[in-house]
């Protein structure tokens, strides 16, 4: 059994106690203690225990019997506890009389109140202090004992607590509680005063309590200052703090949280659902998931999500919170911080985007890029680099830079030069380079490198590779074409074609041949080859017909193109090489063929022009020469005529000579004019109905003098049916020419002229029996003249007569030919169609 309220100071001296010793004979041997007095028991020693009050006596008897017994007895509102125990030689009785509860209670309360860190006082109706309790008076350097019975109002005012005095007065007067704050000797006191009202309703005094809240206040102030600093820090850092009391679903937010979310305190109902409503719909599922995990697994919460503020702005937030659990492990709170990292997120996004853009740019560039550091270790590269060098994926991933370098080196025509260049550059990190790499497979790659600088310092080197094969090929083709054109401007076509074949071999083909189409057929002009074993270059028949041939057989490719100008084929160009020809190369060959054809034609035209010029010069020389003859004769004849006495016979002969020379000169002039007209293509032929027989007769009549002079007898046989549509004057010219030749070369022998008519044609023949014309000259006599003609002169003519005659006859649609042998004379036969062709 314990006392109801444990006294704070343990003053158990107030407990009454007693001891009674009873012998085995039932006689009280000893009786001591204040409890006996409480039981109104005195002079017990020597009395018999049985004479004690019944309860007491019974207990003793039981104990004497050998059994322990207890009992409680109430005497004067006090409970006494009796415990009787058997002991050696009798019984021992213990008595315990706890102190008066009420007195104890009062005493206990008094002790408590003395310890209260405050001051409690009471006054009566006259405001005299009746009670003063608490520790505070001592702190305030006031002795409580001196206050009892003092007039409170005066006392308070004297000690600087006027406001309390007034409050007391108010409390009593108004019968209501008064609360105030008081500063006293550097301490802050919270004061509460209540009127004491008895059962009858009358005010019998007042009770006051004053608590020193100084430490509380400063703690408060410190806390407030700390909170203010925290709030300020949160505001500056845009960091908010929150607490979510999960079981009751109540959310607490710092000021910054409201600012971050752009809402005011009024609108916030502090439930988690309200917080959720602010989250961006696309991020809601993720956030819910995190929160679920956090609550279920009791793990800290970390989430980045967007909110949409009421003003429509979207912000990105990062939240971190810890979970607080209770004793049973259930989540009671989730508390943490949250900050607005929108700008940061945007910067990150922009940076990521830039990074991706950069990577994409690197991949999108047409160049292969390789970045190495100062130790020549590969730092970065793009897909194009890999494809240019055809590097297997495994090699790139291995990161073995030496193996990579070896693999790359082997693809080049000159790997040593490449390695030298690379070493050179590593010794000069600040140098830039630009060169062309030639690959064994025929590709050409342009390589450019520059040092890579960061903050002004060289940290590595960037290599860029660009496949310029196409460009190099194009350049090569263009250069070849330009050089070919230069060569082909020469008027010495055959030499130029030979030179062309030379530049083609080695650059464009391993063997090249040129054929020229002469009057006698194709002729192989030149064949050049740098092949180890030379096999003849075939001619493409098709090329000589004007078609390009390009074919690939047994690993060889061949191109044959015509040398053609405006559809006229003058020859062919043949190329061949190992491997394949691209379409661009076939086109190049065709262009070469065109230009070569042009060169050949130009050379021919030039030669023709030069010949024509030559011929003209010769004609002039011959004309001048030939004319000198008649003029010499005329001169001598005229001068002779001046002689005074001249025999008539001589005079007549002189006149004949003059007339003859005059005619000769006239004919020379006509022939010159005709040859001019012929070369200009302006020889005009009229057409009218002409009787060939009549023309023949006219000519013979006109040539009477010449005939007599020539000595030949002219026999004419004609057919009047030989009538056609011809040019009478030109026809006359032809007949005059033939007759004149016959007279010249007739050696005096008879001359026969025959005219006959066939169905649609008229035939004229002039035959002489003179010196004749050798077979090899039969065609030449119809040419205007050729070189060295002077050595076979035509006896006093320009030698153009037959040429002009043929032109006239052919212009009329007919033909003229000669039959002759040396010593057997000559027969010229003209065949004319009667109607214009």
């Amino acid at each position: 059994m314990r006392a109801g309220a444990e006294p704070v100071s343990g003053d158990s001296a107030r407990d009454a106690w007693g001891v009674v010793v009873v012998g085995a004979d039932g006689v009280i041997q000893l009786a001591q203690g204040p409890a006996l007095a409480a039981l109104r028991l005195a002079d017990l020693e020597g009395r018999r225990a049985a004479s004690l009050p019944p309860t007491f006596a019974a207990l003793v008897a039981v104990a004497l019997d050998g059994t322990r017994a207890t009992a409680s007895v109430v005497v004067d509102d006090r409970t006494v506890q009796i415990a009787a125990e058997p002991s050696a030689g009798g019984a021992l009785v213990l008595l315990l009389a706890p102190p008066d509860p009420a007195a104890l209670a009062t005493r206990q309360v008094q002790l408590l109140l003395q310890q209260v860190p405050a001051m409690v006082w009471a006054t009566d109706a006259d405001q005299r202090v009746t009670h003063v309790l608490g520790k505070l008076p001592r702190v305030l350097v006031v002795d409580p004992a001196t206050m009892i019975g003092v007039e409170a109002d005066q006392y308070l005012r004297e000690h600087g607590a006027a406001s309390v005095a007034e409050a007391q007065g108010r409390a009593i007067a108004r019968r209501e509680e008064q609360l105030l704050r008081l500063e006293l000797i550097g301490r802050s006191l919270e004061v509460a005063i209540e009127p004491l009202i008895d059962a009858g309703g009358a005010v019998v005094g007042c009770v006051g309590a004053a608590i020193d809240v100084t430490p509380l206040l400063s703690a408060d102030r410190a806390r407030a200052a700390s909170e203010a600093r925290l709030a300020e820090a949160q505001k500056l850092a845009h960091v908010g703090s929150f607490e979510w009391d999960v079981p009751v679903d109540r959310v607490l937010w710092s000021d910054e949280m409201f600012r971050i979310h752009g809402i005011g305190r009024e609108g916030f109902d502090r439930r988690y659902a309200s917080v959720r409503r602010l989250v961006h719909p696309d991020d809601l599922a993720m956030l819910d998931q995190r929160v679920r995990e956090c609550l279920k697994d009791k793990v800290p919460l970390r989430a980045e999500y967007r909110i949409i503020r009421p003003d429509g702005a979207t912000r990105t937030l990062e939240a971190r919170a810890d979970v607080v659990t209770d004793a049973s492990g259930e989540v009671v709170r989730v508390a943490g911080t949250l900050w607005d990292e929108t700008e940061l997120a945007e910067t990150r996004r922009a940076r990521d985007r830039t990074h991706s853009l950069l990577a994409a740019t690197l991949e999108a560039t047409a160049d292969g890029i390789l970045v190495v550091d100062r130790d020549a270790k590969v730092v970065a590269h793009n897909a194009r680099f890999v494809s240019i060098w055809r590097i297997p994926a495994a090699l790139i991933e291995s990161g073995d830079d030496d193996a990579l370098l070896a693999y790359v080196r082997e693809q080049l025509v000159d790997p040593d030069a490449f390695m030298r260049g690379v070493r050179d550059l590593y010794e000069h990190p600040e140098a830039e380079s630009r060169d062309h790499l030639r690959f064994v497979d025929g590709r050409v790659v342009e390589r450019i490198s520059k040092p890579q600088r960061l903050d002004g310092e060289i940290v590595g080197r960037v290599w860029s590779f660009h496949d310029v094969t196409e460009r190099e090929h194009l350049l090569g083709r263009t250069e070849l074409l330009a050089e070919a054109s230069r060569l082909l401007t020469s008027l010495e076509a055959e030499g130029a074609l030979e030179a062309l074949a030379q530049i083609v071999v080695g650059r464009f083909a391993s063997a090249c041949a040129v054929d020229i189409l002469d009057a006698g057929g194709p002729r192989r002009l030149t064949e050049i080859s740098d092949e180890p074993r030379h096999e003849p270059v075939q001619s493409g028949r098709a090329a000589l017909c004007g078609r390009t041939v390009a074919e690939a057989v047994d690993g060889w490719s061949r191109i044959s193109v015509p040398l053609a100008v405006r559809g006229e084929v003058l020859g062919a160009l043949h190329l061949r090489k190992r491997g394949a020809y691209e379409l661009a190369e076939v086109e190049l060959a065709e262009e070469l063929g065109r230009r070569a054809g042009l060169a050949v034609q130009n050379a021919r035209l030039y030669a023709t022009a030069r010949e024509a010029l030559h011929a003209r010069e010769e004609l002039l020389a011959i004309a001048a020469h030939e004319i000198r003859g008649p003029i010499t004769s005329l001169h001598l004849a005229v001068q002779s005529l001046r002689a005074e006495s001249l025999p008539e016979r001589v005079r007549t002969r002189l006149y004949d000579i003059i007339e003859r020379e005059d005619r000769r000169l006239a004919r020379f002039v006509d022939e010159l004019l005709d040859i001019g007209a012929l070369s200009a293509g302006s020889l005009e032929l009229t057409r009218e109905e002409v009787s060939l027989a009549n023309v023949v007769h006219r000519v013979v009549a006109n040539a009477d003098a010449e005939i007599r002079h020539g000595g030949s007898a002219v026999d004419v046989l004609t057919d009047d049916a030989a009538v056609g549509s011809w040019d009478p004057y030109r026809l006359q010219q032809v007949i005059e020419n033939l007759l004149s030749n016959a007279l010249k070369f007739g050696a005096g022998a008879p001359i026969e002229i025959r005219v006959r008519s066939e169905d649609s044609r008229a035939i004229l023949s002039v035959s002489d029996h003179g010196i004749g014309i050798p077979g090899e000259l039969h065609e030449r006599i119809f040419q205007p003249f050729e070189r060295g003609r002077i050595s076979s002169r035509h006896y006093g003519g320009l030698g153009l007569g037959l040429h002009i005659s043929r032109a006239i006859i052919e212009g009329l649609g007919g033909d003229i030919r000669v039959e002759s042998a040396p010593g057997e004379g000559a027969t010229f036969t003209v065949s004319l169609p009667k109607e214009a062709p």
Partner: protein
Amino acid sequence: MTASSGPILVVDDDPDIRELLELVLAMRGYDVLSARDGADALEKLESGPRPALVLLDLMLPHVDGYQVVRAMKSNPALAPIPVVIVSGDQAARDKARKGGADACLLKPVELEELVRVVRDLVPAQAAS
């Protein structure tokens, strides 16, 4: 020493010039022989009477005037016979002169000059 009374050999492929020269010279009392080319001329020189003078055109078919001059000058029998070149070509005349011709006449020939040159080299014979 003069070549006595031999004929004048006229060599020209133009028959009209031959005829004229014959006329002109015959009128002045000379005998005239004519040849129509170099071969003909050399033949007549070999076989015919020794001419007192040769009037030679250079431009002749088959055998030209130069060849005639050379042949004559390299033949001791013919060498003394004077040769007068009658030609239209100045350069040719100079060349022939070097070859041994005695005189040159440029075509068209002036009658007076022709007569003078001939008379110098062959004094007139019987006048007609």
